[in-house]
């Protein structure tokens, strides 16, 4: 490759011995000139004539040199260096412009990077399992009953798992918490999962130490072996390498540790202890839909094929087991889809919103650049006269803008480190996959790409304008501020798009804020203020059902004796508790046949103490539970208003009627009637957005199987401050019982909003940023336009225009553009708000009120932004204005 070697040699020479190369070039051209002169003289021309003709024939020496340079190796590289150097000099020369631009870009690129870091960690990074896209999650649904996602039944799962041609492996599991005690240390509650033997092979994760479970170890309750997480091993066992074989106490049973998982493995959720599932197939009811299931697809099988097959099997099961499977179908999704399902729409909407902010920032910077390129007309004309081609000028201008945006991007990247942490701290607990959020190559590539793209985006219009310039007239004007028609229309277009973009973003923010306000207005049905909640899960050999009841009764008495405590109650189901149990059971009113078709689904709460008084749920009819409603007394129940109205006519007429509890699964239903003794107000149980949930309450003393309770303590004063007292009182009763999930009811309500609150806040922030940028942008364009038109305004005034005429002239010019922007924005918003329709609550995606209000807001802001420069124009002194040019 001699040619290649030559090129490299030439490149080195051109780059590192530039002075010699340039000197040689000058000498060569000088010689050529002399040669031409001599030729002309020989042809009989006079010396001066010959020189003139030679100069014409050779062309401009500097232009010629530039043309030669363009053919030489390394020209592009060298030109880039030169452009960058020159760009940096320009930046230092106009520090105000540079700082404003880099700050605007840095903030918006930083915000984009931060949001993208979240999107990347949560949505883009694959799950940390080999071939993770082949792992699927199995759920149930019952469209007829209005259940769109549900856990599944173990027996159904067993039937599906037989399809070994579909699945390489399958596993079912449950999650909960376990009471973990070792070496006499204080017991604590840690997240625990009970898994079938296939669990670790579905995920293809091997224990770091020891081994996975063996099939014969899953032999029912109680389990005798456990696997612990790397974190727990480090924290509680000091990373003891001899841990395998150790005995520990988990929820009152003695278990042998057989394995330690590798670092970072905490599936599902934040599980620290895995135990065998302890399923007892002979007693497991088919409609006990409490199981989660995952499986690994065989190679060559896709989700759709698996879905079709399982649905077919399910149709069979529904026929065969009508009592338990009526209406139930199965649906599959990839495990990744399932994990991010709740947060995906919000995250994508946020990414879109923050992208809009960046676009608006780009428009602003483009405006600034456009104004500056007008001021640089003369410099650019000189460059062109010196032989710079149009591409060369274009490239130099783009180099300058990309330089700005890349510096902005670096600032943004640094800023995003902090912003990402702020974002993460704002997210509600239990938001998935946050541990995956970090700066990785994708985030870096995103920031770099966005920065470069931004530079080109805001640089291209001004650069095109600058390079299109007519050299002769620009030089002749001598820097006089002649505003080209094209430049004006480019600026108008920028103003219009700025208004339109801000309007779209603000409408989105407006809709979300309105949804959020609607959510705040939702009647909870209880008073969440001044309540402390906590969980207790009684463990150990000394507890059995009668003691469960007795423990909570005693605890209530002790707590009530504390100063400031107004009411103490508890329930197996606390309202709006995302991580809590949601126990659904059916009931059948007296007189109806006891079949599945008669069963009505209701939220079922076994309660203790003064539950209704603690939450201030009103009693509409009848009475609350009393001491006489104990194990020996007649069986009673309290229902909520909607249940009373739906099945008994009214709260008053429900009193004295009877019903039977039809269990969540057969085998646990009560074979006796309960008398309705009271009707209470409706409360939101599952979520703020849910409605019309039927509720049944029974006293703990008459349903004493529950060892766990969510406590509610109503306190005069700050409920959070009561946590220490609560712990002390529980310890006084039994020092081995940890109190966990201690927080105020206000927090529980807030947390139930999930990511909705954060995304609304962020949308509001982005909306404000957009409004501010738009206001500054409009002001900038109009102020600049007034400066450009000073001369014209002077003439108008000299010809008799009044101050009000000038004011009107300028405002009309700006507002015409702003109004066009508003109309374009409304059209855009109308099309785009559909995307966030599923994030809205109680407000339509094209809610006219929001659209009108946001339009008015933008018009108002534009008016102010136009009025200020207009006032300055109106105050011009015509003599001064005319003298200016």
């Amino acid at each position, binding site marked *: 490759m001699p040619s290649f070697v030559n090129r490299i040699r030439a490149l080195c020479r051109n780059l590192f011995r530039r002075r010699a190369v340039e000197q040689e070039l000058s000498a060569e051209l000088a010689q050529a000139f002399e040669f031409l002169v001599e030729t002309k003289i020989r042809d009989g021309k006079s010396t001066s004539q010959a020189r003139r003709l030679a100069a014409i024939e050779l062309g401009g020496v500097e232009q*010629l040199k530039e043309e030669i340079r363009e053919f030489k190796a390394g020209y592009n590289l060298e030109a880039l260096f030169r452009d960058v150097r020159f760009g940096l000099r320009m930046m230092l020369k106009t520090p105000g412009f540079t700082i404003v631009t880099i700050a605007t870009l840095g903030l918006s690129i930083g915000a984009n990077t931060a949001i993208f870091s979240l999107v990347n960690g949560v949505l883009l990074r694959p799950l940390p399992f080999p071939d993770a896209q082949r792992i699927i999650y199995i759920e149930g649904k019952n469209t007829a009953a209005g259940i769109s996602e549900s856990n599944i039944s173990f027996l159904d799962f067993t039937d599906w798992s037989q399809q070994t041609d579909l699945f390489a492996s399958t596993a079912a599991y449950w999650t909960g918490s376990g009471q973990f005690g070792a070496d006499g240390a204080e017991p604590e509650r840690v997240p625990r999962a009970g898994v079938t033997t296939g669990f670790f092979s579905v995920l293809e994760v091997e224990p770091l130490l020891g081994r996975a479970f063996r099939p014969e170890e899953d032999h029912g309750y109680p389990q005798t072996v456990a696997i612990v997480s790397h974190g727990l091993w480090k924290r509680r066992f000091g990373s003891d390498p001899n841990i395998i074989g150790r005995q520990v106490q988990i929820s009152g049973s003695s278990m042998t540790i057989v394995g330690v998982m590798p670092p970072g493995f905490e599936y599902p959720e934040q599980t620290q202890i895995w135990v065998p599932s302890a399923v007892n197939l002979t007693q497991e009811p088919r409609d006990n839909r409490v199981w989660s299931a995952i499986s690994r697809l065989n190679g060559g099988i896709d989700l759709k094929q698996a879905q079709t097959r399982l649905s077919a099997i399910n149709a069979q099961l529904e026929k065969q087991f009508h009592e338990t499977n009526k209406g139930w179908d199965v649906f599959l999704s990839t495990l990744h889809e399932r994990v991010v399902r709740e947060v995906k729409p919000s995250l994508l909407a946020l990414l879109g919103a923050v992208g809009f902010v960046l676009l608006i920032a780009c428009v602003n910077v483009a405006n600034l650049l456009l104004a500056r390129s007008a001021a640089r007309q003369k410099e650019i004309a000189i460059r*062109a006269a010196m032989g710079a081609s149009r*591409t060369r000028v274009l490239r130099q201008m783009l180099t300058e803008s990309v330089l700005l945006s890349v510096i902005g991007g670096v600032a943004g990247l640094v800023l995003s480190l902090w912003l990402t942490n702020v974002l993460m701290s704002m997210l509600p607990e239990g938001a998935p996959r946050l541990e995956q959020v970090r700066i990785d190559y994708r985030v870096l590539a995103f920031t770099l790409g966005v920065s470069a793209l931004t530079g080109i985006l805001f640089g291209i219009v001004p650069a095109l304008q600058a390079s299109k310039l007519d050299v002769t007239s620009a030089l002749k004007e001598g820097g006089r501020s002649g505003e080209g028609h094209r430049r004006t229309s480019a600026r108008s277009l920028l103003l219009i798009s700025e208004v339109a973009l801000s309007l779209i973003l603000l409408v989105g923010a407006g809709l979300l804020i309105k949804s959020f306000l609607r959510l705040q207005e939702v009647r909870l049905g209880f008073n969440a203020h001044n309540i402390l909640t906590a969980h207790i899960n009684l463990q150990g050999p000394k507890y059995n059902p009668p003691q469960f009841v007795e423990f909570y009764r005693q605890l209530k008495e002790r707590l009530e004796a504390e100063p400031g405590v107004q009411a103490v109650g508890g329930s197996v189901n606390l309202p709006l508790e995302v991580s809590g149990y949601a126990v659904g059971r059916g009931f059948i009113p007296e007189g109806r046949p006891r079949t599945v078709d008669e069963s009505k689904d209701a939220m079922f709460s076994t309660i203790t103490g003064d539950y209704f008084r603690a939450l201030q749920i009103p009693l509409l009819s009848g009475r609350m539970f009393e001491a006489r409603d104990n194990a020996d007394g007649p069986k009673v129940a309290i229902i909520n208003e909607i249940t009373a109205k739906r099945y008994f006519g009214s709260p008053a007429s429900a009193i004295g009627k009877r019903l039977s509890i039809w269990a969540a699964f057969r085998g646990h239903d009560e074979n006796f009637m309960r008398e309705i003794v009271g009707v209470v107000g409706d409360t939101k149980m599952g979520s703020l957005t849910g409605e019309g949930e039927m509720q049944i309450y029974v006293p703990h003393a008459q349903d004493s199987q529950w060892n766990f309770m969510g406590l509610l303590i109503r306190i005069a004063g700050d409920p959070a401050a009561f946590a220490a007292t609560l712990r002390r009182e529980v310890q006084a009763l039994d020092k081995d019982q940890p109190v966990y999930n201690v927080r105020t009811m206000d927090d529980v309500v807030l947390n139930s909003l999930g990511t909705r609150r954060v995304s609304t806040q962020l949308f509001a922030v982005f909306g404000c940023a957009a409004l501010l940028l738009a206001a500054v942008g409009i002001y900038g364009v109009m102020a600049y336009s007034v400066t450009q038109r000073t001369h014209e305004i002077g003439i108008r005034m000299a010809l008799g225009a009044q101050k009000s005429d000038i004011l009107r002239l300028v405002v009309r010019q700006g507002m015409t553009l702003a109004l066009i922007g508003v109309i374009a924005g409304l059209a855009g918003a109308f099309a785009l708000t559909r995307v966030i329709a599923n994030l809205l609550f109680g407000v339509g995606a094209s809610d006219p009120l929001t659209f009108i209000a946001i339009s008015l807001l933008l018009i108002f802001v534009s008016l102010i932004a136009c009025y200020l420069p207009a006032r300055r124009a109106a105050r011009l002194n015509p003599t001064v204005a005319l003298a200016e040019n």
Partner: protein
Amino acid sequence: MTIRRNRPTELLQGTLDLLILKALAHGALHGLAIAHRIEQITNGAFEVKPGSLFPALHGMEEAGWLVASWGESRNGRKAKFYRLTKAGLRQLEKETSDWRRVSSAIAAALRTA
């Protein structure tokens, strides 16, 4: 005056390279003498302007087809002389045969009705 944006097209560029190589086949020449020589050997059909000539010469030098050295011209002035290298000679042969093939193909095409 507006900024120039035109540049010799690829085809013309190739033709110019061939003519320069040919002009140098019988010995070293300085820049404008090459232009003069091309004019001669093409019977005045090609008039090569300095704006095309010099960029081409520098490009070909960097490609290793030509080497330049400073010497004395006929009238005793110092000038930059260009001379073919071995690679340049090979390039001349290659471009000549390419050109013949193309031109005879085009001639054949033009002969058909």
